[in-house]
């Protein structure tokens, strides 16, 4: 491990950052009966065998489920530095097991959520104030079209015009697949050059667990934001969806899509839905990849450079 002191120091400064702002550090289960069903995140399933009974549990892909249960139970501002597990994610910027920093504060809007993330980067990475760009502005600036109104056919034409290779197996009818591809190939590498870039107000179809709002042009957008620094995606945040019925609908859609893709559908996280029915306060939350934060702090090019043990 090349940077053990920097890792320890960054962890201390991170805790100090949240402690100074009145956040409470919490711990939640890594192994649990439920997991949040996400379209493109594969959780690890763990089998417990005892006598003749076998039982499946999940390694958490983020601490979100349990942290939201804490908010429902009355927590106001909480953070956690823990491990998360995502199957099949392995590359220069990904590890199946990685360190995640996740925080929530009640009363925060998307704007307040973005400000807190910006403050964190300014404090820990000594960056200039982040530059905020809406999803629509970014597409207008770099690709000169509106991502909210383009059809799948038009998006395919834009991709062809920029000589982007279409991945084998891509669903050509799915606008979000095209948008993700164009974003990854043409916009992300441009984000966060002189100062961190925060991309916000995603298409409503990419809300995941964010609230949907209407922008000044009357377009439905997701109150979701992502921070990039030197082209690397560092954090993802939401003005959190608090409506249990809508969340249940979104989980069902995720499972339908997963089944269409030939992937396993995941059980609805009842404990979270029940907690939300009882009331999740208005809040913003954010998850940040700690290994990537350390990479950026020390100028490393891959996560392998900043961890003690490589994984293949």
């Amino acid at each position: 491990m090349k940077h053990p002191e920097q890792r320890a120091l960054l962890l201390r400064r991170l805790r100090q950052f949240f402690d100074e702002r009145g956040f409470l550090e919490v711990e939640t289960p890594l192994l649990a009966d439920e997991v949040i069903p996400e379209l493109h995140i594969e959780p690890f399933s763990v089998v417990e065998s005892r006598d003749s009974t076998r039982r499946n549990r999940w390694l958490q892909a983020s601490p979100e489920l349990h942290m939201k249960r804490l908010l429902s139970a009355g927590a106001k501002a909480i953070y956690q530095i823990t491990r998360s597990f995502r199957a099949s994610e392995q590359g220069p910027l990904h590890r199946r097991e990685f360190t995640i920093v996740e925080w929530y504060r009640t009363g925060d809007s998307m704007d307040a959520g973005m400000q807190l993330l910006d403050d964190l980067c300014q404090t820990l990475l000594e960056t200039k104030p982040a530059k905020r760009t809406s999803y629509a502005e970014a597409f207008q600036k770099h690709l000169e079209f509106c991502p909210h109104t383009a059809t799948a056919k038009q998006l395919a034409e834009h991709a062809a015009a920029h000589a982007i290779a279409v991945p084998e197996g891509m669903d050509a009818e799915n606008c979000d697949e095209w948008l993700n591809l164009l974003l990854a190939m043409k916009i992300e590498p441009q984000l966060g050059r002189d100062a961190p870039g925060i991309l916000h107000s995603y298409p409503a179809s990419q809300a995941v667990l964010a609230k949907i709002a209407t922008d000044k042009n009357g377009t439905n957008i997701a109150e979701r934001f992502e921070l990039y620094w030197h082209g690397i995606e560092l954090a993802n945040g939401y003005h959190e969806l608090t409506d249990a019925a809508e969340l249940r609908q979104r989980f069902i859609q995720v499972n339908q899509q997963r089944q269409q893709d030939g992937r396993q559908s995941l059980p609805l996280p009842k404990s979270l839905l029940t907690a939300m029915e009882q009331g999740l306060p208005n809040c913003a939350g954010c998850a940040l990849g700690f290994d990537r934060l350390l990479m950026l702090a020390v100028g490393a090019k891959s996560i392998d450079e900043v961890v003690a043990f490589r994984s293949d």
Partner: protein
Amino acid sequence: MASYSTNEFKKGLKVQIDGVPYQMVEMNFRKPGKGTALYECKLKNLIRGTVTDRTYRAGQSLEAADVSEFTAQYLYRQGESFVFMDNSDYEQYELSGEQVGEGAGFLKEGMDCQLVVYNNNPIAVTLPNHVVLQVEYCEPTAKGNTATNVSKPVKLETGAEIGAPAFINIGDWLRVDTRTQEYIERTKEPE
């Protein structure tokens, strides 16, 4: 037929697409935001040697290619084909001039090469990077010309013609890089 799904993709994997064997020479995992994981691959066509970029969405798979590589000795040329022998089981394999490619002019009887076999058929051969060969013919050296940067064509015992310094004479032994087909140095006769 065995296949590899995207989460098994890695450098060195041998796969086939439309009946053509490829080796994965680079693989990069990318996962933008909350989007689909993408596997960006560089695939080397094991027959032509060309490299193609392909990107696969998570959940795709590629057929495994039954490709093996082993050391084989070059035996002789028979008309338009080249005959090699597997050093471990003495099986003989015949390759066409096209399959041998530009290396043909550097092949010497008894030379150990790497033979690539796909579905039991030989498809390509890789020569040693450096070989030592004798000069069969070149123009005589002009008197007093000791410059090493002057190049002249020399014909090697195996048929290839390469550029070599002016001081080289018929019967000299040259070390040659088979990848670039360039002269490296004059050397002594191999034992």
